[in-house]
């Protein structure tokens, strides 16, 4: 094992696939804790690069802007700038951006670049971008940004290969640090527009299928109806689908208890302990497992399909104070 370890911070907008990338890189070797005094999750992991170098990865909270409005955004900013107490500055920042939504995400990339630290841009969800016909000139983007740009697909095995190769190589030269003042912040959108015009060809702004589904899912009347029907179906499924499995588990545990304790004398303390205590208790807990599994299956489907935020009517977080 090489002595040199490299500290890498992953940053990006919320929903850019940053955490999926972190999971793909570090696998099970993660440590989850909290930043001192706040309920902001601190995720750290490490992996060994092909060269044998150990890379320390830290997954920072998703952030729209360094003009922080919440504790997690503050932490992201401070860690990136090397200003967080007890947290050494990262040797390299990997800025993750959703390739299908560069208009929003590139602005943050420019903000990160202004810190004046070595940055690599990972264009994530490149497969979705291609499928939607979004054509990104990566070489030109790299040239204009002045930082290395790699393509990743965080949800595919091997989708982070280009990123691993890049961070395993020499640390890229840091871009020039620029002051953070309101005037230059306002200019970032203009720079994003220029970059997009020069490097990205987009056939249309959204997915046609999404639009069609949203017309129904977000309708003031039908939307509520769809939500009610879905919730009723889930409720029904949790109870009716689980029933046969629950009956089987209850009968199975009781039979197992009967078989194990059959050798013991009826009415003895040990017989009672095993039969009425251990096996009855085990059965009472296990019997709920099917319901829990079915419920979580539905929650997973709702979450992954993107229906949940539509049902919740999510909004930007309220500003403090």
């Amino acid at each position: 094992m090489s002595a040199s370890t490299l500290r890498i911070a992953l940053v990006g907008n919320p929903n850019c696939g940053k955490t999926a990338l972190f999971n793909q890189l570090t696998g099970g070797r993660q440590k989850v804790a909290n930043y001192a005094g706040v309920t902001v999750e601190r995720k750290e992991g490490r992996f060994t690069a092909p060269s044998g170098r150990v890379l320390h990865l830290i997954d920072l909270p998703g952030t729209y802007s360094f003009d922080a409005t919440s504790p997690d955004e503050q932490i992201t900013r401070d860690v990136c700038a090397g200003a967080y107490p007890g947290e050494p500055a990262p040797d390299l920042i990997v800025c993750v951006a959703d390739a299908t939504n560069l208009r929003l995400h590139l602005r943050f990339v420019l903000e990160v670049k202004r810190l004046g630290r070595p940055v690599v841009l990972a264009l994530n969800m490149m497969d979705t971008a291609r499928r939607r016909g979004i054509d990104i000139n990566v070489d030109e983007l790299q040239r204009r940004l002045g930082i290395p740009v790699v393509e990743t697909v965080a949800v595919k095995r091997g989708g982070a290969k280009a990123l691993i190769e890049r961070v395993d190589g020499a640390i890229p030269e840091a871009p020039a640090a620029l002051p953070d003042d309101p005037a230059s912040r306002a200019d970032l959108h203009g720079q994003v527009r220029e970059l997009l015009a020069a490097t990205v060809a987009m056939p249309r702004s959204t997915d046609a299928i999404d639009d069609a589904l949203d017309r129904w899912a977000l309708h003031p009347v039908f939307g509520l109806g769809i939500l009610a029907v879905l919730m009723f179906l889930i409720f029904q499924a949790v109870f009716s689908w689980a029933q046969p499995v629950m009956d089987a588990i209850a009968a199975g545990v009781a039979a197992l208890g009967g078989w194990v304790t059959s050798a013991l004398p009826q009415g003895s303390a040990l017989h009672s302990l095993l039969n009425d205590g251990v096996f009855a208790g085990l059965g009472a807990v296990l019997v709920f497992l099917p319901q829990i599994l079915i419920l979580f299956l539905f929650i997973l489907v709702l979450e992954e399909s993107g229906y949940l935020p539509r049902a919740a009517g999510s909004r930007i977080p309220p500003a403090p104070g």
Partner: protein
Amino acid sequence: MRLSDLPKGAPAVVDRVDDVLAGDPIAQRLRDLGFVAGEPVRVVARGPLGADPLLIQIGSTRFALRRSEAARVTVRTGEHVQGVHG
């Protein structure tokens, strides 16, 4: 016209975001999210009760905003905005 009054589906472009109070953090956040002059914007859907919240599409990104938040954004409508909607 305010974004909160924009009819559903009508194409418009952002004109400006107003600070309701000095150094308004919500207005600043809206600008960070891309509500800046010249960006195409439209109302995709409205909430069932009192048309709150509003689902706003700016570029290819969607945000759900409360009416009070959307009211900070002034938009322009009319024929001259048709061209910017792809």
